[in-house]
């Protein structure tokens, strides 16, 4: 090594990640896309549900369950889909489009820090939104604790992994905010359809039910619903979620570009 080598003892202070997270949180608060999509939208849906008396009554067509308890996992899917498919990719693609990632790539900060900060912020928003759903569900709709809590937690974690992997892949390939929004919605509506947002899975024709079982949010809602009623999620549901997480996680890492 040359005489210059002595210059190189220093490393990026690890405290810088805290600073980055803090400043990204400020941005997330000042441009509340994630806050609106991930938190305000589900609250809005809850308010509408509350205004429909039938939501709270057990229905024979649902095997004695209330409409709300059937919809509760779908609302979880809605929150996670909004944050992972829209909020995260649109934000990161905006950073790419405007050259903010390019600027940061000339600093000693490891590139993954920005991704990590954004994932953490959107997960935090998800925690807030899910918290509101649980509190409102328990207080306002007579929702009970899941009868298979371990299965519920596992299904929830795998859903988060699968959805954020898809979101990171969109973030990786979209060059512009507009592009990220378009690809995000291309995923959002079909996935929410198969999750049962417009029509519960139980009421879908067999073909659609079959497709739904292989879609990430379909498998997720299926697993979450079962766990709430006391059935541990099926291996198929969990493996479908793992599959989406692994494939899109790989694609995201493989195709990520700073510009």
């Amino acid at each position, binding site marked *: 090594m*040359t005489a210059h080598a002595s210059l190189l003892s*220093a490393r*990026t202070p690890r405290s810088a990640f805290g*600073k980055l997270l803090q400043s990204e949180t*400020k*941005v997330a608060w000042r441009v509340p896309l994630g806050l609106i999509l991930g938190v305000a939208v589900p609250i809005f849906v809850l308010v509408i549900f509350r205004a429909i008396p039938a939501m709270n009554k057990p229905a024979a067509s649902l095997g004695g369950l209330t409409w709300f308890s059937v919809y509760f996992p779908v609302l979880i899917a809605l929150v996670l889909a909004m944050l992972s498919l829209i909020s995260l990719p649109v934000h990161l693609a905006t950073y790419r489009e405007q*050259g903010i990632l390019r600027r940061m790539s000339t600093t000693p900060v490891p590139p993954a820090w920005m991704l990590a900060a954004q994932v953490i912020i959107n997960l935090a928003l998800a925690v807030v939104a899910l918290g509101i759903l649980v509190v409102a569900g328990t207080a306002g709709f007579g929702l009970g604790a899941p009868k298979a809590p371990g299965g519920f937690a596992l299904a929830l974690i795998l859903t988060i992994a699968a959805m954020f992997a898809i979101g990171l892949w969109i973030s990786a390939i979209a060059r512009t905010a507009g592009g990220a929004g378009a690809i995000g919605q291309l995923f959002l509506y079909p996935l929410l359809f198969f999750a049962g947002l417009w029509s519960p899975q139980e009421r879908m024709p067999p073909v659609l039910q079959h497709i739904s079982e292989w879609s990430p949010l379909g498998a997720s809602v299926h697993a979450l619903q079962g766990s709430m009623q006391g059935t541990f999620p099926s291996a198929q549901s969990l493996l479908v979620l793992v599959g989406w997480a692994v494939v899109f996680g790989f694609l995201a890492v493989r195709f990520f570009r700073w510009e």
Partner: protein
Amino acid sequence: MIPVTTESRPTGPGSVPETGPAIEVRRLRKIYRATVAVDDVSFSVRDGEIFGILGPNGAGKTTTVECVIGLRRPDAGDIRVMGLDPQADREDLHMIVGAQLQASALPAQLKVGEILDLYHSFYAEAADLAEIMDSLGLAEKQNAYYKSLSGGLKQRLSIALALIGNPKVAVLDEMTTGLDPQARRDTWHLIEQVRDRGVTIILVTHYMDEAERLCDRIALLDRGRIVAIDTPDGLAGRAGVDKRVRFVPSKSFDDHLLAGLPEVRKIEHEGEHVIVTGSGDLANAVILTLAAAGVTATDLHLDIANLEDAFVALTGRHLHDEIGRVHR
């Protein structure tokens, strides 16, 4: 085609041989699909030097510096920056190299003070934040959102961020584009101060006046290749364009007085004006000789061959017209 010059002169007696050049680029080549952006580019930048890279749009200037700071992987060639390989030692490199790039920005909803504070935290041995803010006139803008800044202020913030890590090497790409004349001069002054602190600077520019004023040496780049590397004066000299001094003498004098000077090649009269053409330290020689004979040169104009002339002479193409359309 003029032969490519990699190193125009031996290092001076004051140089420290064991340190080697701050930046060494050997036979760099970068291809985008079918386009060769940079072809066989070699140069070395000495410690503490301001090294200019000058050329029209599409000449490969930005690609070259992007390779130097490790943002792009060269297709061929070898680069060392303070002994580091930009690809293999990227994190170490970015600790000691500050860069101000084109087409880069900062989050619109962050305030100037927040951005500076954030970038300050990235470096182990960062510069003094207050000093950086003062020297770039950003102190009173701390609470302004990035999106509300004028082009000039954004540019100044960008330069501040390039210097905030207390870098050994600063890479500044078109740093004064979009600045008004006063802000440009202020920025030049700042760059000179930074150099005086021992920072080695690579300056990418298409402004001749900027390169002439700031650069110790300049690499002229055209269509991905280096046309020449030399001092600003050296380049102008190579262009074979003479210097011209134009003045009104306070009283008439015999042309032979100046014709005998080694710097002078031709003397012309145009009404009351005298136009002396030549080379070297022409203006000084003429003025001193006249003064010794009791003649004062009034209404003095220097018409020095500039880098524009050099570029035209060396490539047969215009530097300025081409970029003028894109940047103005």
